[in-house]
């Protein structure tokens, strides 16, 4: 079982394994996929590399030594049963999936599924384990989903606003002016028909004004 309490600084394997701040392609790809990931040494569990999503899950201000982020920021929050499973898998270098509740910088617990694998990598980093965190619904995914929904709604509003400005508003303007002309002309020929045409022109005008309000809501600058 690994000694999680010892400082990686003292570890004889530390210098051999430490890839420092060099870019880790696996962590980088997982970052692109929106997955927090950390690469740890297979003997000491010290952090060799991680992506920004992972560091955003860990209360890094309380853990100035980056190499301790996994031991202090993840392992210490494992419940007893999960911790035993993790330590067994860690010592045998076998893949594992366990539930972990991280203590995020915001103070909100973040539920996630941690998948630990030992990837096939070049010799310089082959004594490492990559841990990927999949956020579980109810916390991170909900917020992510809400964020995507909000972005989608804003994008759709912008699309509609642009379409209204570029085409629909122009067509309504034409319709309002066209109806007004027809109503005026019909009024000369037939008073009753002229009244109906005027009502229609008024309806188009009202729709035009309503569209005007929709397209141009009052803003701070117009005050």
């Amino acid at each position, binding site marked *: 079982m690994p000694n999680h309490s010892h400082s990686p600084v003292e570890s004889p394997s530390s210098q051999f394994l430490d890839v420092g701040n060099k870019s880790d392609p696996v962590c980088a790809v997982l970052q692109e996929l929106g997955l927090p990931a950390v690469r740890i040494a297979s003997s000491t569990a010290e952090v060799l590399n991680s992506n920004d999503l992972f560091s955003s899950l860990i209360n890094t201000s309380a853990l100035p030594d980056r190499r301790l982020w996994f031991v202090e920021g993840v392992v210490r929050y494992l419940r007893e049963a999960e911790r035993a499973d993790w330590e067994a898998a860690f010592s045998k270098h076998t893949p594992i999936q366990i539930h972990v509740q991280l203590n995020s910088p915001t103070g909100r617990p973040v539920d996630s599924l941690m998948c630990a694998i030992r990837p096939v990598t070049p010799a310089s980093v082959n004594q490492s384990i990559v841990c990927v965190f999949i956020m579980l619904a109810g916390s991170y995914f909900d917020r992510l989903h809400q964020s995507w929904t909000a972005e989608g709604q804003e994008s759709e509003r912008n699309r509609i606003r642009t379409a209204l400005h570029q085409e629909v*508003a*122009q067509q*309504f*303007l*034409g319709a309002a002016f066209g109806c007004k002309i027809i109503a005026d002309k019909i009024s000369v020929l037939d008073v009753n028909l002229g009244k109906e045409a005027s009502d229609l022109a008024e309806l188009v005008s009202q729709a*035009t004004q309503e569209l*005007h309000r929709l*397209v141009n809501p009052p803003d701070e600058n*117009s*005050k």
Partner: protein
Amino acid sequence: MQPLRVFLVENHEDTVRYIKLYLEHLGHEVFIAGEMETALREVPKSRCDVLISDIGLPDGDGWLLLEKLGPDRPPFAIAISGYGTGNDQRKSLAVGYNSHLVKPFLPNTLLSLLEQAAEEKGSAPVG
């Protein structure tokens, strides 16, 4: 209202068509340009009383048009635009437009402004 010579600078086909029809229906003479360059060339020749110009033009904008017209600018100018932020409206007034209408605007709104232009024309000193 006395007939006016109105120059309309607008590149949207439907907007041009119906505003032109409406202005002619009211008895005004209408000149058209779809681009700023054409307007810069034609407005001085037209000796128009009123300029109605869209702010968004394919080769410039209505603000630049009025600035470039300089002393050739008509005595009354109306900006029309699909965008109606306070900044746009203030900029239109700052460069010399008498009013800034946001599309879609109503025929009666334009009519009121043309009446104002006709009044100003009527009260302007001759020569």
